[in-house]
């Protein structure tokens, strides 16, 4: 009983702290930067981090196994991973603004009424009783967290550049607006293929746009860095899962839906890493691949569980 109370307190603290942090971020984005506020948001994230850590440790002690056994626990762990990645590039204040809401959303979703049924920590089914559980699940969820962060940055690039296209189109002569909308967008798209080109072009427009292009470049490079890190985790996660499967199910690869989707995710991010190799495909194209990866991770993480098929049934919404 004391554990569940403690758990409740911790979830509520972390959740409310994150919401405050996000509102601070929004304020600093809208109003000019207030240093004191920004510092407090950093502290807030650290508090959240410790709260979630405490939550996980509590559950660990309470259930006497690592808290990775069901969806709720994996979500909490995911938001823990997010908070780590939030603190990682903490020098770049705008980047953390993009990551902070994801902590909130995962936390909010985990604690929402939708999942109340599975809040109670459950027993481990025989197949999960293995030392591989820790390695496999922690690596997978860390990789989800990293890849989601990275691809969110890519989504942000897409959003910003799309707005840019619209802005530029808007600035062009109003008379030709409709006529040129299509052709201009096309030309712009071709230009976008080469980011450098864009940077040169946009720097023409205004002083503000120069910062914007700098910002896009920052987003791009951080996105690449974080996705590469997530890719390592994903590789280790999938492979340790394969080794585990060879111990538990008798085959290292079963084409189980969850496995398959993890492999699809891996392939998509492998494509992302390869698009970075070619200058021509860098920038918008690679961010499109990464944004695709963003959705695929969610399919892999939730979609398959929603369908409730395959051997990875432990994380499903409906307890059978």
């Amino acid at each position, binding site marked *: 009983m004391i554990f569940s109370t403690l758990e409740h307190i911790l979830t509520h603290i972390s959740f409310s702290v994150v919401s405050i942090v996000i509102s601070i971020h929004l304020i600093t984005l809208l109003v000019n930067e207030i240093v004191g506020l920004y510092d407090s948001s950093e502290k807030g994230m650290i508090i959240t981090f410790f709260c979630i850590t405490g939550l996980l440790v509590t559950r660990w002690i309470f259930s006497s196994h690592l808290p990775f056994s069901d969806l709720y626990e994996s979500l909490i762990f995911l938001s823990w991973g997010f908070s780590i990645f939030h603190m990682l590039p903490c020098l770049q204040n705008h980047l953390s603004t993009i990551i902070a809401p994801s902590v909130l959303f995962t936390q909010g979703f985990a604690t929402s009424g939708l999942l109340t049924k599975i809040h109670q920590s459950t*027993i*481990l*089914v*025989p*197949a999960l*009783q*293995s030392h*591989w559980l820790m390695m496999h699940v922690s690596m997978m969820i860390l990789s989800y967290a990293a890849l989601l962060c990275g691809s969110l940055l890519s989504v942000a690039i897409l959003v910003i550049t799309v707005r840019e296209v619209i802005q530029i189109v808007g600035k062009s002569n109003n008379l030709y607006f409709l006529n040129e909308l299509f052709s201009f967008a096309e030309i712009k798209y071709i230009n976008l293929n080469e980011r450098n080109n864009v940077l040169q072009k946009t720097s023409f427009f205004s002083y503000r746009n120069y910062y914007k292009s700098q910002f896009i470049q*920052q987003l791009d*490079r*951080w996105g*690449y*860095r974080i996705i*590469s*890190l997530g*890719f*390592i985790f994903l*590789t*280790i996660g999938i*492979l340790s899962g*394969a*080794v*585990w499967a*060879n*111990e*538990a*199910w*008798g*085959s*290292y*690869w079963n*084409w189980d*839906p969850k496995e*398959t*989707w993890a*492999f*699809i995710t891996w*392939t*998509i991010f*492998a*494509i992302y890493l*390869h*698009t970075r*190799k*070619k*200058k021509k495909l860098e920038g918008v194209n690679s961010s499109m691949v990464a944004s695709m990866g963003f959705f695929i991770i969610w399919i892999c993480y939730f979609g*398959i569980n929603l369908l409730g*098929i395959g051997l990875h049934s432990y994380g499903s919404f409906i307890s*059978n």
Partner: protein
Amino acid sequence: MIPLNSSNPCLSNTHFLKVPIFDPFFKFKTFSFNTHIPSNGHHALSFRINSKLKSSQDIQKNKGNNGVSQKIILSEVSPPPLTEVDGDINGGTGNENENVPLKSKNKGSVSGLARMLSKRTLQILSNLPLAIGEMFTIAALMALGTFIDQGEAPDHYFQQYPEDRPVLGFFTWRWVLALGFDHMYSSPVFLGMLALLGASLMACTYTTQIPLVKVSRRWSFLHSAEAIRKQEFSESLPRASIQDVGTILMGAGYEVFLKGPCLYAFQGLAGRLAPIGVHIALLLIMAGGTLSAVGSFKGSVTVPQGLNFVAGDVLSPTGFLSSPTEDFNTEVHVNRFYMDYYDSGEVSQFHTDLSLLDIDGKEVMRKTISVNDPLRYGSITIYQTDWSISALQILKNNEGPYNLAMAPLQINGDKKLYGTFVPVGDINSPDVKGISMLARDLQSIVIYDTEGKFAGVRRPNSKLPININGIEIVIVDAIGSSGLDLKTDPGVPIVYAGFGALMLTTCISYLSHSQIWALQDGTTVIIGGKTNRAKMEFPEEMNHLLDKVPEIIQPSLSQQADCISG
């Protein structure tokens, strides 16, 4: 940047700048410079000669430029063959290449044609957009495989994808069955794509990555200030000495090469080379997977406690390379099957105590297996995968014990239900009545009387009798049977080797390969550098390092350096 081919996607452009010697490697001219060399099917040979010729030319050129051979300090590593390159040398080599095909066209022969074809194939296969397309296709096919139910009878697909209501307007069961999407992961389309991707991997490794190793192993100096300033990061330090820069870079973990006024330093070369390892590891996994698919044996069996079976009887081959070993004569005896339970009554673990007997009946191994803890004997692995209840041992009015076979009533998922029936009265009458006994696990048996009413629950081994309709029943034991999977898989060691290599090389790939050039120009040191991954951190790190470079008050040192270089 330079007149580069676009056919070598994996290669970063900048390397060409520095080492144009390898230009012909990447150019993929349809005819080689040395077609008169007897063809032995080894493309690399002619290339190598080609490049050798050129490198000697270059060296001569450079000798003209630099004159005296210069000493390398600050480095104890014996350097690989030196290449000294001026920024503008590329133009010259480019022209030479233009002339090459003209000369060899006259000698075009069958071997030349074959070589051209294979080169063209390599060129196409190592094309990055193609590889990306292949990966996308494979991802899409896999996704499709999770949406279409796999391994069902054709009737299922007739109903699921009827012709009169096609999915998305065109997708009917004809597509599913014709393309083999009912067994996606072994369909020719999917396996073909995987094979194509494997071929692309090999082609890319051979044509671009391996040459890259050779390029990367050389280190090159930049002699002109403009070339250094063109780098992604560049900075000029007034009143500094290049030796100090070198020392500081060495302190930061860089390999530093210093020659006269020029400095070249690099770090994290492994990060540039590891992607080759990634590709090789992937090929290894593919090879292992193929071997697993064609050379393994699989089988599953449900054995009641106390019985035995011969391993070879259960195992059936999966492919044409499967060949049985003598381990297949081993007899497996199930000594005991039991479950562990949580306090709440749920199953925590299944255990089977197995004995392996060789052909003479001698016990060679004994082990209690459980889920996640299989038994390995020779090439055979035995897994605990399933269970059921085979029989109930009862005493009826102190007679017996009788063995009642248990029938599975519900076998979906983990919630199994087994039942049996003890007839009461006349067995031959049309509506025979009796006592029903149901069990979900080996822990407790639920007993119903002849009317179907709940009578009680008994645990096996409790010896507590239950009296139903005047019949006294004692449940002596519940006999479980163990579901075992048997497997031999010759591909596992290869696949595991691939796994290990893949994990390691992906991690190493995260390292960033940074290169730094510096040039002493009077009292000023011009520093330029680039990195392939950590583009955000690199300028910061560089600024941090360069802050440490001491400012020289008396300019004598740098003048000395100038004298040496002059």
